[in-house]
């Protein structure tokens, strides 16, 4: 019960994430963004630097909330050989293209819908080593909730078995869900 109270809100985040994943997969691609924007900004790339170092300079210039220095895999060259840097946040992705000859940055940013936002929240864990303190605190909470959910599932079964194991509907439902899971697992495998 105490775990349930501590994780009450995140239960709903997980529930929303499940329904969001269902709706996004069911419909046409692309409804994840609430709004999109393209803008230009002055940027003089530092000389004698690697692409990664220039990408770090882009990050320092733009100061996109919730982001950290871009990892290597987020730095690449596009078909016109312009340096492209991707920044990903729970609120949506931003791509900055360095137009070196014009001393400009082309910034394309998208804002996720609230549903995609919840979907991203549910998958934010400390594994990603979040740079921003807000994301880091959320990641710790999510990690706690994952373990709490496992504990609640097991303790819930224990409480049922120890209090009213002869509850017929409960027996039928548990049998149905376990058999469904096993059959689906075997058939999928």
């Amino acid at each position, binding site marked *: 019960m105490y775990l*349930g*109270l501590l994780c*009450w809100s995140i239960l709903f985040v997980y529930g929303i994430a499940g329904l969001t994943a269902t709706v996004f997969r069911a419909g046409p691609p692309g409804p994840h963004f609430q709004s999109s924007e393209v803008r230009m900004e002055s940027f003089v790339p530092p000389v004698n630097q690697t692409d990664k170092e220039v990408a770090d300079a882009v990050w320092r210039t733009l100061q996109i909330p*919730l982001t950290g220095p871009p990892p290597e895999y987020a730095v690449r060259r596009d078909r016109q050989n312009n340096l492209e840097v991707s920044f990903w946040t729970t609120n949506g992705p931003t791509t900055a293209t360095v137009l070196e000859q014009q001393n400009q940055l082309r910034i394309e940013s998208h804002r996720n819908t609230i549903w995609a936002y919840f979907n991203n929240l549910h998958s934010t864990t*400390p594994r990603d080593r979040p740079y921003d303190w*807000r994301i880091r605190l959320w990641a710790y909470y999510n990690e706690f909730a994952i373990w709490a959910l496992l504990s609640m599932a097991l303790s819930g079964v224990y409480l*049922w078995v120890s209090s009213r194991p002869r509850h017929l509907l409960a027996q039928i*439902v548990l049998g149905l869900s*376990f058999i469904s899971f096993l059959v689906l697992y075997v058939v999928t*495998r």
Partner: protein
Amino acid sequence: MYQWFRNTHLVAGLLAVPFVLMYGLSAVQMSHAGWFSLKPTVTEITVSLGSSPVNDGRALARILMDQNHLRGEIRQVKATDSGFQLQIDHPGTVYRVEYSSQTHQAAIRTSVAPFMGMLNRIHHIAGLRNASFIMDVWGGWVVAVSLCLFVLGLTGIYMWFRLYQERVIGSILLAVSLGYSLTLILLIRAA
């Protein structure tokens, strides 16, 4: 009334329990990738495809699917000097096919994920309009389990509130939890 909420809580919990365990275990695996070995089991076979060459990757995939050598969704088709390469994914299984238009043979390399890898892949199944009926059934369970989480949350809070001796400590825990999580949800969204 209390009994009705208690029974609903019990039924929703038991309906969701195997799936919640799967989601929880796979979430632990994703959060702590180093704790588990995801080394797949790899097998290789070579299939002869008759005398006439196959000129299209999708057609090749179709032939191999019809012959029951593989199943799943085509993720990659790439032309090579000797023919083409395909990658076909099925939850927990990746097929890499190398087709030679000279020999008319397809070399199929099948990588099957271990148990935790399989759970990881199942965790990502969603939607009700997938390529196969089985995936749609998984997708249906995603909806059911999501709704069960709402039901568990709502019935759980009611049952806690009815336990008078637990109200003080419970209120403190709930206030701390809501204060922490809702503040972060708002702060992150507003950033």
